[in-house]
């Protein structure tokens, strides 16, 4: 390799101006590579973003003969969403509560599964294939069919028939009552018991939505050098110690990435309560339904961004980066 690079350096050295222009040329090529995105961002995305924000502050009327007209109304749409609309505030609070419950559960679960799937064992490839199945299949149309299923369960619950929704699978595996009885005798706090029971009852949703996170953790685990683990074994560290002293710090950047991804993902999925509420809002509100729905979704987005920034800020101070030489 050095033999190849040396002649190049020898040629380039006499012309010192050329080196600067090479950098410039490189920069130009770089711009060409990102050009598709830049064009799209400037001509498609920015107008869309601008219109959406405008819509939240305006009152839109369709002009006969095509086209629409906007009238600036200030914070009216926001006021309506917050104070006049009956369900929005309540849905927002329960939705955010759901977020607080789900994100740690998904993170813990996907980390745990990634560690398990990283070990050598029989049928590892098959298990991996099964666990990543929901990532590609349980989205979009399947999600909406699943949502319909839950409705079907409620309606046909008297018959006790399996309708194919995951919720019935979960309730068959564990009964929350048994668990509560088990943990209650252990004298752990009731909040913790409730949290664990909720996770177990919600296991289908959590498994379904931790696929990408599992992949990211798995790639993180693979990038840890086996030499470190070997050194730990030689020094006599137990598995528990190795996890907390080696695996956990090494994987902490991934935890940050996954936390951010999970928060974004869980507030953009269609199964999210607030999103569903906002999607149905235009048909429920008599006047300016679309505008108010847009205002609602911007409010929700801003709240989530604040949460996101707080989480990222707090977590990034605990993240450990391996120094590269």
């Amino acid at each position, binding site marked *: 390799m050095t033999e190849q690079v040396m002649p190049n350096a020898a040629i380039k050295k006499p012309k010192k101006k050329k080196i600067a222009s090479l950098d410039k040329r490189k920069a130009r090529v770089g711009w060409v590579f990102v050009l598709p995105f830049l064009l799209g961002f400037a001509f498609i995305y920015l107008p869309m973003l601008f219109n959406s924000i405008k819509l939240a502050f305006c009152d839109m009327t369709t002009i006969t003969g095509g086209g629409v007209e906007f009238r600036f109304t200030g914070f009216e749409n926001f006021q309506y969403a917050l104070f006049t609309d009956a369900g929005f505030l309540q849905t927002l609070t329960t939705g955010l509560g759901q977020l607080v419950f789900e994100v740690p559960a998904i993170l813990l679960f996907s980390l745990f599964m990634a560690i398990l799937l990283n070990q050598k064992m029989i049928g590892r490839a098959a298990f991996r294939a099964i666990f990543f199945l929901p990532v590609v299949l349980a989205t979009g149309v399947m999600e909406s069919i699943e949502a319909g299923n839950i409705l079907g369960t409620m309606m046909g619950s008297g018959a006790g028939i399996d309708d194919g929704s995951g919720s019935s*699978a979960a309730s068959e595996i564990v009964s929350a009552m048994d668990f509560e009885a088990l943990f209650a005798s252990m004298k752990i706090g009731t909040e913790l018991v409730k949290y664990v029971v909720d996770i177990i009852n919600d296991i289908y949703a959590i*498994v379904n939505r931790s696929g990408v996170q599992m992949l990211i953790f798995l790639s993180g685990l693979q990038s840890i050098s086996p030499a470190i683990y070997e050194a730990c074994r030689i020094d006599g560290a137990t598995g528990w110690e190795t996890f907390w002293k080696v695996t956990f710090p090494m994987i902490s950047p991934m935890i940050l990435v996954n936390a951010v991804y999970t928060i974004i993902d869980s507030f953009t999925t269609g199964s999210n309560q607030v999103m569903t509420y906002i999607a149905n809002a235009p048909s429920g509100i008599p006047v300016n339904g679309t505008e108010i729905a847009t205002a609602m979704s911007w409010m929700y987005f801003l709240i989530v961004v604040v949460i996101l920034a707080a989480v990222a800020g707090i977590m990034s101070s605990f993240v450990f980066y391996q120094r590269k030489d």
Partner: protein
Amino acid sequence: MENSMPKIKKESKNKIRVEFDRTPLKERLKAKFLNFYFLQTIVVKILRFIFLLGIAYVVLFPFFSKIASSFMSPEDLLDATVRLVPKNFTIDIYKAIWKDLKYLEAVTNTILISLGLALIQTFVCCVIAYGLAKYKFKGNGIIFMLVMITMIIPHKTLQSSMSMNFTYFDIGGILSFLSGGASVGIESIDEILAQINVFGLAEALPDHSINLKNTLWPFVILAATGLAFKNGLYVFMLRQFFKGIPDSLEESAYIDGSGDFRTFLQIILPMSVPMMITVFLFSFCWQWTDTFYTTMFFTNLKQAPLMLSQIVGIPKSLDTSGAGQALYETAIYNTCGIMIIAPLVVLYVFLQRYLVEGIERSGLTAE
């Protein structure tokens, strides 16, 4: 281990023979299998296997039960004793969906559209990610931030404006300007602007914009500019992957006389195939099952191509009235779901290997 002293025999001048007392087989087995460490490992392995089986069951059960209920007759659905194995096996639902809901047409459309869009998305994301990963220029970081912003702001927030944007499509006001629809709010200038009529656009476009709804263009435009569903995630993944490729590889290509674009197309792309397959699989499958964009852009089913995600419904030839109507309809919807994802499952079986491999090789790190 009392007589563990090995017997040493001298065979010749510089050769000796050592005879050990071999521990009996029983003792050796005992030592190997009856210690705490071994037991612990076995118990952990078994528990781990059972746990994974359990989770696999949770993942797969909905698919099993959907498939089971799709073969059931309405009587079976009402019979509480029939659980996962249908008593009166029937494929009526499949037949009805195949015939009444134009399944074949929808599958063909969806395959072509998803394939095309996924290829465009994969390539465009590769180009953008490569530019962000390997070239240092002012604004590189800002552009990456913008990519992240497009990922963070959900398209649902932008839904109504996105829908409007493609109904009255215009590229930065250029079309409107060329056809005389521009306005700056000052009457005298507006009058002059209204006279502009290039290429006869004013007659062709009375609204000063094009309606792209019910065509494939919104999808193509979003895909070609890296703005389609979750493209920010793909750019992020690919950028990390390209960063892991050593610079010396490209340097040696440059020395051998290859230009930037040729290096990218002939050296970088072929070696990132596993990662590209991962991205392709994601974009293909998410486009396949997508309902959000399809329902937004394909509003008129007579003009727009029929997509798989739109066929979910009750076939006319099936009589759902009667006892257990809700259940039977749920079973039909589930069958639609099975038929929609069946081609995807086949694809997944072949490509899932790359999904894990590609991500593992990407060395995805939070830098």
